[in-house]
């Protein structure tokens, strides 16, 4: 009898335990699935922080939204983001760390063409999908198996400017480019494409990324009397060029690249920014787009969410990382946690409406954008962007 009671107690205890266990299980709803780890390497500090900071913010914003909506097939996204400070050595170290230590499924970034080109061999060797946020066309031409990019290429930007110039009846141009990967890649395209449009390039000048005075170059250009000056660089150099042109009293129209498409440029160049014409992604003029534009709603939502969360004005650059993570999320949904399958799925994405354009990837096309959709020409008028039709 006594023995029986003990057994009975044991049964009760076991039952209680079971109830407790299932109950606590219910409290957590369901077993969380293992997170998908995604790496990010951006120039968050340093001279290119105007790129890296919004990129990191956008990526964190999107990851938060995806996780709030239940993750990807139930898997939350876990971000591991490192700062390159715009330095190629640090970018390489960070990429290695992401791949070997953090074991990420894919990497978004780096922010700059130079740092990206330094990281490309690592991603290729380790067979990790890399979605770069940098402009240079060299990143995806020739196609590299594991490397994709979301920003518009400089090929498209140059073509867009040249088309516009041709429409204006311009034949003689001068270029002034910055001595870094962005400027050199743009320079190459500017020189290469000029004959296609029948332009004569009177001179091709350069300036250093940290130069604070471009009057010598501009003096030389002025003497050659081109009909348009195209400056290719990222802040703050192009702002100095704009200011110097005013200081020298040069009246030749100035064209800039999409590298300066941010409010910061207008702030820096102040008065001298007015009248400058440049190609930019649609984000800067989202409100002015026709309602039929498929990107309009996507852009407006992104801008609202971003400005609400970070309390700062949107720039054209954060969208590169946003698109990168969106593309990865779409690929992850189909592929799961397999790097090779993720890569294959990215190549199959076609028609994703993103911030920088509508992406149509293929095995031959790892950027997926066209110049018609990716760029609009804008003019700076009274410190604001105005779309040129």
């Amino acid at each position, binding site marked *: 009898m006594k023995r029986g009671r003990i057994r009975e107690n044991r049964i009760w205890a076991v039952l209680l335990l079971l109830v407790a266990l299932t109950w606590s299980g219910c409290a957590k709803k369901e077993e969380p699935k293992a997170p998908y780890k995604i790496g990010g390497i951006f120039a968050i*500090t*340093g*001279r290119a*922080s*105007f790129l890296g*900071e919004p990129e990191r913010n956008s990526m964190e914003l999107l990851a938060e939204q995806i996780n709030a909506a239940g993750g990807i097939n139930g898997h939350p996204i876990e971000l591991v983001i490192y700062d390159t400070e715009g330095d190629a050595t640090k970018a390489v170290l960070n990429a290695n760390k992401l791949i070997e230590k953090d074991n990420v499924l894919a990497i978004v970034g780096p922010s700059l063409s130079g740092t990206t080109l330094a990281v490309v061999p690592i991603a290729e060797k380790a067979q990790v999908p890399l979605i770069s946020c940098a402009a240079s066309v060299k990143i995806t031409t020739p196609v590299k198996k594991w490397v994709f990019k979301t920003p518009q290429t400089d090929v498209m930007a140059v073509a867009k400017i040249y088309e516009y110039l041709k429409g204006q009846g311009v034949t003689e141009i001068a270029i002034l480019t910055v*001595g870094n990967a962005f400027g050199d890649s743009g320079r190459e395209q500017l020189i290469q494409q000029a004959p296609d449009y029948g332009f004569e390039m009177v001179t091709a*000048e*350069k*300036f*250093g990324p*940290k*130069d*604070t*005075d471009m*009057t*010598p*170059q501009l*003096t*030389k250009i*002025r*003497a050659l009397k081109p009909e348009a000056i195209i400056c290719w660089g990222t*802040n*703050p150099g192009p*702002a*100095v060029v704009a*200011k110097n042109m*005013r*200081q*020298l*009293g040069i009246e030749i129209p100035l064209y800039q690249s999409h590298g300066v498409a941010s409010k*910061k440029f207008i*702030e*820096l*160049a*102040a*008065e001298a920014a007015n009248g400058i014409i440049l190609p930019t992604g649609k984000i800067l003029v989202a409100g002015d787009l026709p309602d039929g534009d498929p990107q309009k709603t996507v852009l407006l939502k992104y801008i609202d969410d971003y400005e609400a969360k970070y309390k700062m004005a949107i720039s054209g650059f954060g969208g590169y990382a946003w698109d990168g993570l969106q593309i990865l999320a779409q690929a992850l949904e189909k592929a799961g946690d397999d790097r090779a399958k993720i890569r294959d799925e990215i190549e199959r994405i076609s028609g994703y409406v993103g911030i920088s354009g509508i992406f149509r990837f293929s095995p031959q096309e790892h950027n997926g954008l066209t110049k018609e959709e990716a760029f609009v020409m804008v003019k700076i008028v009274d410190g604001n962007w105005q779309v040129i039709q």
Partner: protein
Amino acid sequence: MDLSNQILQYVISGITNGAIYAVIALGFTIIYNATEVINFAQGEFVMLGGMAVIALDSSGNLPLALSFILAVLAVTLVGAILERFTIRPVKSSDPVTLIIITVGASIFLRGVAMMIWGKDALGLRPFSGASPIHLGGATLVPQSLWVLGVTVVVMAGLQFFYKHTITGKAMRACAFNRRAASLVGISVNRMVLVSFALSAAIGAAAGIVIVPITLCGYDVGTMLGLKGFCAAVLGGLGSSPGSILGGFLLGVLEALGAGLISSGFKDAIAFFVLLLVLFLRPSGLLGPKEIKRF
């Protein structure tokens, strides 16, 4: 525009930049003479001057002149504090140790500036209008005249200070022979402090006048400091007239090189000339032969 007008424009640009290099070089010279230390935070004083004046100008409705003075005073204080708390406590007076300390101080100041003012470059309105002045076939911004004016004032002021004030004379005495100076009752420590404050002040003044032309960010000091250092070495380290000559020479050579040879080699040309001078005349153009320093 013909070649002579172009060259005139290059020279004007070069003189404006050269004036800044000259003032920075003077800052190096002042501290070098007092301590035999190359102060690698000199460029940071320039940056701090620029950033401080932008901050003061945008913060309230202070007149620009008052912002200018306050910014110079603030940076002077930074220079004095730097000397008092990083240079003086060090037991070893070995210049190499002290130079490394100034390198550390420059990184520290850069970091602090980044935390306070952020990572973007900032601009300031010109002191007196932006419409260019035409000079023959070349153009000149009014701000360039401010730069040259301030440079001249700084040079004249320094000259007066060294020749006609007790402190200035005491500093010259220290430069000739520290031991002898301290034996006749000059406080060497105080002179070193004054030299840091003084070079911070003129560095700040240089930083302030160029902001409207060049913009200013937390990291502009490094390159400006380096160019100023080159100018000082070019002219002869320790020589004030040499610093001034070196500064202008460097600025003009840079501009001519960028305009006439290739803008891709702008910095390379300046440094090539520097190397050439050092090979042919290691003490610099007006460098001290032995003891003459001022």
